[in-house]
């Protein structure tokens, strides 16, 4: 066999029995995350945070005045919110982190589809959610003290949490694909998270305290458009107010829509354009640098 023939044979060797790229990338990432310790540390922090939260609920005299259902609802919401944050952070590190660690170039130099690389990394980033959820369940069970509310928590918590974990892992990865440095990726991702979380905390809870119908309506609308707040609101209404799921279906619109939009953006738009250096970051920098020049020009003209 000539050099060329043997080379071609090597290039295509056993292609039929090979594993799909996304699966290979997923396993490598999973290993990096869990054996490398990053995901383990984050889960450990998650457990400690939930522990403190649950301990406060169980021991603080003032908080103890809360009805049991509300207490369980709060811990379910906290479990989801912190779980999402971990998915977001891992997603945000997945591409820009590899750029910084100089491991992305090796992957991009292989004849594999960019989309499959992103899919593998996405599932790895999402993998922390089931573990986080599994560690949260005992807290929910202990706090619910055998009440009916645990069944509602067990049904809706994992369902809505999974939906939001998918979307937040996706948001983190989108930011990561479009950022050249991990610092930028983390800062932007955390900023986005706070943008979703703060209105939930600031505008979310007090809906019932609004005085006029118009104010009440506006507060409810604010919560409806925010997928995180909408989920919180749904959980509150179904676990505390004991409304039926059929009455509350419209609270699922934004979380589902948000997840669909994020995943379509990630897999259909951003992942085929995955590059060693982010074009988006370069364009953003060039626009950003243009503003002072434009303003100076305007000032000169005026």
């Amino acid at each position, binding site marked *: 066999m000539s050099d060329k023939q043997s080379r071609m044979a090597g290039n295509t060797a056993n292609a039929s*029995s090979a*594993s799909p790229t996304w699966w290979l990338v997923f396993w490598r990432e999973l290993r990096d995350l869990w054996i490398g310790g990053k995901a383990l540390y984050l889960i450990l922090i998650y457990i400690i945070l939930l522990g403190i939260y649950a301990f406060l609920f169980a021991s603080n005299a003032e908080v103890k005045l809360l009805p049991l259902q509300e207490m369980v609802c709060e811990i379910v919401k906290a479990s989801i919110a912190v779980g999402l944050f971990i998915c977001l952070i891992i997603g945000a590190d997945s591409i820009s982190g590899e750029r910084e660690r100089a*491991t992305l170039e090796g992957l991009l130099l292989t004849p594999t589809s960019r989309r499959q690389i992103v899919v593998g990394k996405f599932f790895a980033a999402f993998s922390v959610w089931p573990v986080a959820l599994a560690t949260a369940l005992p807290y929910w069970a202990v706090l619910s003290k055998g009440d009916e509310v645990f069944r509602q928590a067990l049904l809706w918590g994992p369902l809505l949490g999974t939906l939001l974990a998918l979307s937040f892992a996706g948001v983190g990865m989108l930011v990561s694909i479009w950022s050249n440095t991990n610092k930028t990726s983390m800062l932007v991702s955390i900023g986005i998270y706070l943008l979703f979380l703060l209105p939930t905390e600031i505008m979310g809870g007090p809906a019932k305290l609004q005085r006029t119908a118009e104010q009440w309506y506006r507060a409810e609308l604010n919560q409806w458009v925010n997928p995180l707040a909408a989920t919180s609101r749904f959980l509150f209404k179904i676990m505390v107010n004991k409304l039926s799921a059929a009455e509350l279906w419209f609270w699922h619109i934004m979380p589902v829509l948000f997840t669909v939009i994020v995943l379509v953006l990630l897999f259909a738009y951003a992942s085929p354009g995955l590059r060693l250096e982010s074009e988006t970051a370069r364009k953003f920098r060039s626009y950003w640098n243009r503003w002072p020049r434009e303003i100076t020009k305007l000032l000169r003209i005026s």
Partner: protein
Amino acid sequence: MFENNNAKAPRSENEVLVANDLRKFYGPREALRGLSFSLQAGRILGFLGPNGAGKTTSIRILTTILEPDAGHFVVDGISSKYPNEIRRRIGVLPESFGLPKQMTGIEYLTFFGQLYGRSAADARKHGMALLEEVGLKQRAKSLTSTYSHGMRQRLGVARALVNDPAVLFLDEPTLGLDPRGQQELLGLIRQITQERKAGVILCSHLLSEVESVCDDVIILSSGQIIASGTVSGVIGQTQSRRSGSIRIQIPPSSVAEARRILAAVPNVMKVVPTSDDAGWLRVELADPDHALAAEAPYLNNRMLEALIRAEIPILSFQPEGGRLQDVFLHLTAEAMK
């Protein structure tokens, strides 16, 4: 899956890489101005240039990491229109590459082998063979985080060979290695080129390294080729355009006598001791155009003959501008003017 037949482009039998008028702009700046060259199988091409000359941009275009704004290239008969197919035929050792800390050497190569379509068992077997080839078989099961810099570079070379490439791109492969490590890696590159008949593009700032290992050389400056050809050809072309000088080292006690003897040789213009006081003399020769045509080729012989007759020990005899480093400095300085 791949359109092999359509992707094939006509080429000469031995050419594994042909670049044609490649151009790249970063905003208004033209980083690459019509790069055209070819590389033959089994040859090592040194890619040189000062910082910012366009080497990295060229390599990134040729390895499909960047898209050119104009021009095209063909790797192993595959047009640049088919980047995925090209990636199957190239191996790359980037200047800086990271290794996953939680993987052993063999796991790392198996992973990449699988990405190139091998089954896990086949990729592992092939990975072991590669580790043996680069001298890392004993450390196959050690975590990559425990590897020394030299071992990491060797593992990088092995990874670049995972798909048995037609063209191998090595960007500063010996950077940060000790002299023994440099020597060993260069030997390995030479051996790989000979055994596998792959074309190698070697980017390096160590010109002595390029001179010792490369068959051909390209010197880039400001995004364009300012010299190309075989290493000796490029040195020869440049030398012939310059009036020469020779550096001769003799024992410091013989400097005065040697100056007198050399000054008497025809076509020697000036003999000046260099400032380092170690017995070095710089002999400036007459411009080849004005020198006596018949005598010019024998000038070195005449000088050596004169020194030998006078029984002056010759410790070193170096034509200035006769090294790739001199050529590089001369050409890049000229290009910058």
